[in-house]
């Protein structure tokens, strides 16, 4: 058994510190050390994307990263995007357009979609589908997920225009 290491992360704007074995996966560190349970363990095999978080500006599957690798990183999870009192535009639109059924994939979908829209604020439907290819909805509700993301993009762009 190896020694635990001192891990420092900035999660959703807050500095967090804890002891962990290097081999712990980031998803378990978030959920079990920090009680941040928005990112889900879906497949635990790098396929489904339910564990997606934004780490140093990249969408990553937190089941495929050791906590040691993440040490020092800035991380945003679904909890950092919005909350029940102030939903993120993507969350509003997922609600409005029925972009979820069981909801298990939703935190990963929305976290990934937020990064996608940041990089490409005006995606086509095909670009949205390609951009969320690393996120699996086992309910197969892609139609409304794509609709929700496109509607969120429109709303974000309209807000940007109104602000100018």
């Amino acid at each position, binding site marked *: 058994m190896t020694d635990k290491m001192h891990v420092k992360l900035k999660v959703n704007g807050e500095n967090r510190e804890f002891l962990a074995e290097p081999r712990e996966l980031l998803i378990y560190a978030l959920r079990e050390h920090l009680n941040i349970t928005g990112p889900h363990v879906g497949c635990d095999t*790098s396929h489904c*994307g339910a564990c*997606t978080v934004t780490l140093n500006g*990249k969408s990553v599957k937190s089941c495929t990263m*050791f906590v*040691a690798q993440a040490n020092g990183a800035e991380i945003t999870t679904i909890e950092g995007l919005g909350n029940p009192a102030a939903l993120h535009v993507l969350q509003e639109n997922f609600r409005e357009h029925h972009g979820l059924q069981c909801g298990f994939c939703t935190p990963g979908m929305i976290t990934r979609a937020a990064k996608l829209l940041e990089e490409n604020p005006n995606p086509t439907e095909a670009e949205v589908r390609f951009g969320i290819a690393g996120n699996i909805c086992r309910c197969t509700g892609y139609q409304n997920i794509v609709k929700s993301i496109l509607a969120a993009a429109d709303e974000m762009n309209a807000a940007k225009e109104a602000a100018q």
Partner: protein
Amino acid sequence: MIPAAFDYYRPTKVEDVIALLEEHGDDARVMAGGHSLIPMMKLRMADIPHLIDLQDVSGLGGISIEGGRIKLGAMVTQHELINHDGLAAAAPILRETALQIADPQVRYMGTIGGNVANGDPGNDMPGLMQCLDAQIELIGPGGTRSVAARDYYEAAYMTDRADDEVLISVSFAVPTGGYAYEKQKRKIGDYATAAAAVQINKNGGQIASASIAMTNLSDVPVWSESAGAALVGTGCDANAVKAAAAAMLGDIDPSEDNRGPVAFKRHVAGIILSRAINRAWERA
């Protein structure tokens, strides 16, 4: 899934990486993006007592296009390859290939160096590097050396790289003419059932030169010299494409797995190569 315990290192200098590899020998492995190694460790198919993370090592990143050559640092991610406009203009086949690897999250982490070094026959960049006649640069205790991508692969996961060496870059001449990377896969994110990398140069309505490499159709990538030769001097007519595909089929050696039996893979390989040749010809 929880991997076996390991000691974790995050050196900043390549000399320190080499020193760790010399000290721990077989018990140490370097890790770039980790998207091949971590799943293997989680399945306990790989037990790495000393894990050396390359993320902070200086000098392993960067894309340079200079003097007619392109050099890609080992830690350049697939995401960076896709989004580098200079590279997309100079060697568009890199973007075309990288976009067909895995999914967005994996492409943010997965690196060219890891993809080339690992020796997984399913990886796409090794075949492309053979098509482009790339040189692979390695560093070890005795300094750096360069190996042709066409000589680098020995068997599945077995390459010319010694245990105490690290792949630091790949480089190749700026490609000219038409190009295509065509890949058949069962679903997005999958490894290839068959894939083909093609570069074609055209002169006076005829093919002046052609380079063809195939992915996941043997335990190593296959650069098919005879398939390229079958196209040279032709106008890329249907017979020429058929001859090239027939020549390629003589060089591959696929095995049966969950992507299909051997006969199916050979059938798909022929179709994929024909499509790639036709697309490269249109773009030449």
